[in-house]
């Protein structure tokens, strides 16, 4: 028990040292928020507070992203945070209602520089396996024989049907993700370190879109999804568009629909600097290191 705790402690210390050497500052942001996440497939855990005088709903953060971006928009520079995050309706052997996340932002980086930086971080943690970088389109070409960026919803449904899969999807991005899970992910198990980058524009989330792709990436270690990073949107109006779309989608799926996070839009009124950010699942990463 104690040895295991010490190993995790050492792992944390190595990460903190890595950031400290690069002058990335550790921050702590609020975990109890007034507004739940708008992400369509992530649900915030809600709670009632101040029942003794003025009952109010609060929400545990599902990621420190929103609060850290407020800091970035107000001149924080490079920052990182290691914290517990909370999500409702999580299921699966790698998913839990509470888990530890490392989130960090590097100013003037793009996703490729950030992927290089993560590779360095992994090296300091003892993971120095061969790195494979595949664009989302390449992965689909190679492992699924599908031109994912140029296949429309109807054509993609035909492909899904030939694989004997469900075609009951509201939006093309959900079917893309489903096909990725079915066709591509099993192949990633054979690659020890694999970055998938440049996701279809319809899967942009909070990443910058350029033509048919959004500058996002995910890191897979031995086929397990470990990290998710973006070239971050910079301006309040861009965030507003995404939030409104997500709220609308949640409405379509008859899920809880949050109010627009006006506090956030005001806080980033002065815009974020050009930066790239990433969220890393700490326990998943730690267990991959221990497998070695």
């Amino acid at each position, binding site marked *: 028990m104690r040895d295991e705790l010490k190993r995790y402690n050492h792992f944390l210390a190595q990460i903190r040292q890595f950031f400290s050497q690069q002058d990335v500052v550790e921050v702590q942001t609020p975990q109890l928020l007034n507004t739940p996440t708008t992400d369509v497939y992530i649900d915030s855990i809600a709670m009632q507070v101040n029942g003794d005088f003025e009952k109010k709903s609060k929400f545990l953060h599902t990621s420190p992203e929103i609060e850290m971006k407020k800091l970035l928009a107000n001149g924080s520079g490079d920052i990182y945070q290691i914290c517990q995050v909370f999500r409702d309706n999580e299921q*699966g052997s790698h998913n839990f209602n509470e888990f530890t996340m490392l989130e960090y932002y590097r100013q003037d980086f793009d996703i490729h520089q950030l992927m290089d930086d993560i590779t360095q971080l992994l090296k300091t943690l003892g993971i120095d396996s061969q790195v494979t970088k595949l664009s989302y389109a390449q992965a689909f070409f190679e492992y699924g024989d599908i031109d994912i960026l140029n296949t429309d919803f109807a054509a993609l449904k035909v492909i899904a049907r030939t694989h004997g899969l469900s075609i009951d999807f509201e939006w093309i991005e959900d079917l893309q993700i489903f096909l990725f899970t079915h066709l591509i992910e099993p192949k990633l198990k054979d690659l020890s370190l694999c970055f998938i980058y440049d996701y279809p524009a319809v899967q942009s989330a909070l990443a910058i879109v350029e033509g048919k792709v959004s500058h996002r990436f995910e890191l897979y270690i031995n086929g397990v999804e470990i990290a998710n990073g973006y070239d971050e949107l910079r301006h309040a109006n861009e965030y507003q568009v995404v939030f409104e779309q997500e709220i609308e989608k949640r409405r379509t799926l008859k899920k809880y629909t949050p109010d627009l996070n006006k506090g956030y839009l005001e806080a980033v009124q002065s815009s974020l600097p050009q930066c790239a950010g990433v969220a890393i699942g700490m326990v998943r990463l730690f267990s991959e290191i221990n497998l070695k």
Partner: protein
Amino acid sequence: MANYSTSQFKNGLKLILDGNPCSIINNEIRKPGKGQASNKVKLRDLITGKTLEKTFKSGESVEGADVMELDMQYLYNDGSEWSFMDPNTFEQYMVNDNAMDDVRGYLVEQDMCVVTLWNDNPISVTPPNHVMLEVVDTDPGLKGDTAGTGGKPATMNTGVVVQVPLFISIGEKVKVDTRTNEYAGRT
């Protein structure tokens, strides 16, 4: 037959896929950081015996298969069909010869087998783990070899060929493991 939603999936659940009854061997939920959850499921096709891998959208529902496994006594084989009896109801079931490919070499009259029924029709038979078979053909053994070193092929009364110790001779009854097709002793 009822439909099952992915949230009811568990090992051993029987579903209809591409018209065939299948049994879930492994069910894994995959929830991406961004996007909807899905179930990655391994199944065994109960007719072909093949293993399939399918991904279901979370919440998708699939038709259940009315599959039962019953202990039955093997009675006889008339050349094209194999006859089994449920000892509780005395009901007899005829199994087509082509469903017997992997097991016909292990069927001994009166032995209890597991017969898998789909919509009340037998689709497969699982013999007991060990059966007693009679050696009908094998090379003469070496005298004095009792340690069972080495071995030789022996044809059994059911047609199956099993590697047996050198001291086994024609007419002897031997115990055979039906899962591995290995000799498992003399009594």
